[in-house]
């Protein structure tokens, strides 16, 4: 499978009449986008606002972040199987990307599970989305719409708008084209016999309402572990439907731009032989955990892997999946490295994870979510501050009179995202 990613560098974004790109300036029509969203009768209001890096802007509550892309040739569309898109295999051909932009869905679903993005100040240092030109969709549900239905509506609204914006890049000449190839397993194994064969196990959040992920439109709770080409992620085959705690959420944007996949590709053929991605879930039912971790270990063995990187999404329940995957993969004689974040309490002295096995002796930390910071007031607000003190990471007294916010960094979107993409790490001295 070969996928060309054509990056169109977007330098600025503005609201206007026509949706177009001119010399790096993206213009979007907010009325057109809002009208498209309001075709869904579960949504009462939709407003489009822009937020740019360095501005004194606070965006909250943020639910998901997506990157506008379009399939120029090759099968299927981006985000296959969701938001009324046909289910067709993706990951081959060419995909154009409006690089530097992001679409954010903003607005309350339940009062504690969405997060903050600050575009400047110390809060901006903790989220990757303070560096993108953000097209924010501020949504409100129709009265009486049930929470599950509204979560679906908000998720689909974000995906539809992201696709509409991505479509602008279809006939553009990209500023750069990067080629990613994924060969059949026997070819891969033969190509670099002297290099260690490495796989990536991507654990997807799959517990229930606001804790789900979709793979080609299938609820990840219902999958058994399967093998994917890394290029399928780039075409949006994996879509987030969750906001676990904001800090360790993996938004759709980070699935499209998975930092582990990027790094594994960059070392492929040099330091290691990147063999592919195994996706698995994080169900609440203990027997599912056993079934899925058995499946992960089996696939790793069948692929002939020497080593595996395992990432997770969330805290608590997923820690057990992480450790089961580690133990069972190691039992096959395959080395593991775990990628996670930590919640050791405000004094930093508690257990960072709620589960552990002795085989977990190589762990990369993406930071600890209990760190408390004070984010200065911002001049402009996109969304509402109504729920700051009850969001995960906030507490009584978090929102100060001057508009500053004292809170744990778990309130910030992707601050400790356990696939990387953030700036935090732990080092041993």
């Amino acid at each position, binding site marked *: 499978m070969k996928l060309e990613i054509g990056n169109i560098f977007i330098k600025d974004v503005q609201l206007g009449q026509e949706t177009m790109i001119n010399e790096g300036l993206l213009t979007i029509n907010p009325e057109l986008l809002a009208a498209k969203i309001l075709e869904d009768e579960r949504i009462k209001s939709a407003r489009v606002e822009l937020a740019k890096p360095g501005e004194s802007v606070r965006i909250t509550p943020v639910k998901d972040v997506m990157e506008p892309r379009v399939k120029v040739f090759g099968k299927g569309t981006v985000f296959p199987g969701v938001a009324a898109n046909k289910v067709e295999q993706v990951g081959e051909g060419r995909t154009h990307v409006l690089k530097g932009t992001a679409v954010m869905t903003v607005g309350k679903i*339940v*009062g*504690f*599970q969405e997060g903050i993005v600050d575009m400047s100040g110390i809060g901006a240092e903790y989220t990757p989305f303070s560096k993108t030109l953000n097209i924010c969709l501020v949504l409100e549900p129709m009265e009486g719409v049930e*929470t*599950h239905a509204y979560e679906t509506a908000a998720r689909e609204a974000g995906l539809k708008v992201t696709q509409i914006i991505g479509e602008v890049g279809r006939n553009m000449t990209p500023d750069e084209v990067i080629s990613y190839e994924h060969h059949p397993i026997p070819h891969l194994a033969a190509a670099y016999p002297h290099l260690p064969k490495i796989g990536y196990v991507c654990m997807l*959040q799959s*517990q*229930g*309402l*606001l*804790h789900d992920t979709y793979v080609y439109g299938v609820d990840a*709770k219902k999958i058994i572990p399967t093998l994917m080409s890394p290029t399928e992620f780039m075409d949006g085959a994996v879509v987030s439907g969750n906001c*676990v*705690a904001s800090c*360790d959420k993996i938004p759709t944007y980070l699935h499209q731009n998975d930092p582990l996949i990027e790094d594994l590709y960059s070392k492929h053929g040099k330091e290691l032989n990147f063999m592919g991605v195994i996706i698995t879930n994080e*169900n*609440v*039912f*203990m*027997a*599912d*955990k056993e079934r899925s971790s058995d499946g992960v270990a089996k696939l790793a063995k069948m692929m002939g892997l020497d080593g595996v990187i395992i990432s997770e999404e*969330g*805290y*608590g*329940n*997923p*820690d*057990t999946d992480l450790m089961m995957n580690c133990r069972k993969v190691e039992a096959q004689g395959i080395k593991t490295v775990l990628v996670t974040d930590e*919640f050791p*309490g*405000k*004094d930093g002295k*508690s*257990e960072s994870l*709620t*589960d*552990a096995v002795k085989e977990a002796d190589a762990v990369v930390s993406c930071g600890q979510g209990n760190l408390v910071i004070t984010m200065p007031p911002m001049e402009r607000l996109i969304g509402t501050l109504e729920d700051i003190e*009850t969001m*995960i990471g906030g*507490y*009584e007294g978090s929102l100060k009179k001057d508009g500053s916010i004292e809170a744990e960094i778990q309130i910030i979107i992707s601050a400790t995202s356990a696939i990387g993409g953030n700036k935090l790490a732990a080092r041993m001295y």
Partner: protein
Amino acid sequence: MMILITNNEDVVEQWKNCRDIVIMKRESDNMLDVLYCSRDLLHKGHCLLTHPFTGSLKPNESPYKSILVSETVKQLHVDHVATIEQCIASAQKSLENRPIPIYSEKLLRDFRLIDKDLISNGIMRAQESHQK
């Protein structure tokens, strides 16, 4: 048969007429009570059917907790006991650091909804799998 330990009245309401579930309703606004009660059952040889930390919510965030264990008693399942003991230790430490705040009824409703949705997924998977 399965035993559902919960302090969430919405969970009781949803599952009270289900024939293969025995509900142990805990009258507590603290999830630790549900963890202790479940731990005691596991020590007697019941099996853990759903993970004690569903939802990835920290123990000092949601007052509600629902856990499903087997009704049948078998040999002590050491891994399950270890899992719940680790969760209890983590919950104790979190609550020591910062107790659960006093929430508005609207927010409590949201917490009950999420807890209900997550445990219901676990219950339905258990029913489908006939692993009770």
